[in-house]
């Protein structure tokens, strides 16, 4: 006997099939506030930033408003400064180490969070938030204090191990390599909570059934990670990684508080270099030029990502 299958009766056509204009109005309505705010507040300053980069703008110009146009002189000046290229190389190295450490550490912590019992998860999350909540200036001063000669707790603890000898008097921050390592440690420590919690949030969106199904097929552990977790985490992973790259390149406070870019400018990265040029020399035109160069550099790094964004309908 043939059974006629019929579509369930609909009293009116499904909303998804209605003329394009309704979803479109809603879409524009949902995006409009953000666009309005950003254009209104950022539009002028961004344009002004580009203009600033082409001007000679010091503290007198802030007062009088007169600032001569110097065309590309600010930009070529920066590019011609040998110090700039050393700073750039150092920044690339710094960012690479920090971001890799952050992503690996964050993934590890997020994996840990998904495996522990509820109480341990809450405790770990609270720990992470406490680290995140600590203001960067206080964290940097605390770091300086922990590693201080004569009064530093870490110096004391290391000395108690009796492995490296008496380290109480070591001034780690006075040497470029150990200073850089300490700065990296601080930046990674402070950045872990955001990465870990965001990755965990993404991981918790993955349905448990997928893992069960894979488990039945014999894929567990690393294989499951490769086939299920990684692909589904990719959108968030990419965003977080790119954000961390941007933030570590622009990082200023931890480096300034710990070493002021020294000794001898050997821990100066782009963020510090930019501050020294714009605010220490009160040369806001060159500061703007460096900012634009930074954006160009970061855009180049993110180019592959940005290109994918501009392709029609592509997800990250």
């Amino acid at each position, binding site marked *: 006997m043939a059974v006629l299958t019929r579509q369930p009766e609909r009293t009116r056509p499904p909303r998804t099939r209605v003329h394009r204009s309704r979803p479109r109005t*809603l879409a*524009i309505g949902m995006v409009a506030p953000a666009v309005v705010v950003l254009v209104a507040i950022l539009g002028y300053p961004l344009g002004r930033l580009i203009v*600033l980069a082409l001007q000679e703008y010091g503290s007198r110009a802030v007062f009088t408003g007169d600032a001569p146009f110097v065309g590309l002189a600010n930009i070529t000046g920066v590019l011609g400064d040998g110090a700039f290229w050393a700073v750039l190389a150092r920044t690339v190295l710094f960012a690479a180490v920090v971001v890799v450490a952050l992503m690996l550490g964050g993934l590890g912590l997020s994996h840990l969070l998904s495996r522990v019992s509820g109480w341990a998860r809450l405790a770990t999350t609270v720990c992470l938030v406490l*680290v995140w909540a600590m*203001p960067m200036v206080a964290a940097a001063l605390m770091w300086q204090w922990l590693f201080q000669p004569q*009064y530093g707790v870490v110096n004391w603890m290391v000395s108690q191990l009796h492995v490296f000898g008496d380290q109480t008097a070591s001034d780690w921050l006075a040497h470029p390599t150990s200073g850089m390592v300490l700065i990296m440690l601080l930046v990674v420590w402070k950045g872990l909570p955001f990465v870990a919690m965001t990755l965990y949030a993404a991981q918790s969106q993955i349905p*448990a059934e997928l893992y069960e199904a894979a488990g039945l097929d014999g894929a567990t552990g690393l294989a499951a990670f490769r086939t299920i977790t990684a692909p589904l985490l990719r959108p968030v992973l990419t965003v977080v990684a790119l954000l961390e790259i941007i933030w570590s390149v622009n990082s200023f406070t931890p480096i300034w508080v710990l070493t002021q870019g020294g000794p001898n400018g050997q821990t100066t990265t782009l963020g510090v270099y930019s501050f020294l040029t714009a605010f220490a020399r009160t040369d806001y035109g060159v500061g703007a030029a460096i900012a634009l160069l930074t954006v160009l550099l970061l855009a180049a790094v993110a180019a592959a990502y940005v290109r994918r964004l501009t392709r029609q309908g592509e997800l990250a």
Partner: protein
Amino acid sequence: MRRRAGYNAIAMVCCAVLIFPVYWMVATAFKQPGRVMESRPRFFPWPISLGNFRHALSTADFGGYATNSVLIALSTVVISMVVGLSASIALSRFRFPGRRAFQVLLVLVQMVPGAAILIPMYLMFRSLGLLDLPPVLVLTHLTFVLPFTIWTMRAFVDAVPPDLEQAAMVDGCGRLGAYVRILLPLLAPGAVSTAIFAFIHAWDDYLFAYVLMTSQQHYTLPVWLVSFQTQEGVDYGAMIAASTVFSLPVLVFFLLVQRKLVAGMTGGAVKG
């Protein structure tokens, strides 16, 4: 079961290592004011003293600064979450003219170093006569927080298949209703992370608040925090106590947000 216990142990060790500097800060805050720095470190503050806290909180403007900070930070979070979430959903689910350009701009805007935009913004607000108005600070924070929120939340929205909302819409739910009732709860974990970021960004800002506000009554807490590092040297005891007090509201904010919005944080994945 044993596996879980193993993971729990690792988690506790990680916690201990990660939290040590924070513990050290808080423990030091409770030490007696004169005994804050010692060659032989004491890991537990004894006798416990509130001297540093008293010293830190006795600043005349603390109350005013705290109020300003709280209002500005909360406004930033609320506005950025509302505006940012709806924009990120639209970006993920719809095609509309200018979508591509908007996305690219969002990414580019985040690459501009914060301090670089200070002087242009100052110039703009000065010509508009809007200096020294706290709501303006909310707007400046939004310019950094909004792109971040939209971009991050969009990745979370992308990870949720549209089938769920569409099923709801088939059942007669309106599009907006479907988003609110079905999509938003699934975005809760990501929203928590993003909201904390927005709060901390507004809470920690020193430079913009200090430069764009010119009257003392409009300053925010970071100005208070800096006041313990004077040219004479650092009053470590008071500064540590001040940092501890400064960090507390973020923790409070997290606990509030996490209880109200979170489904996935403590329970694992929740899927239909």
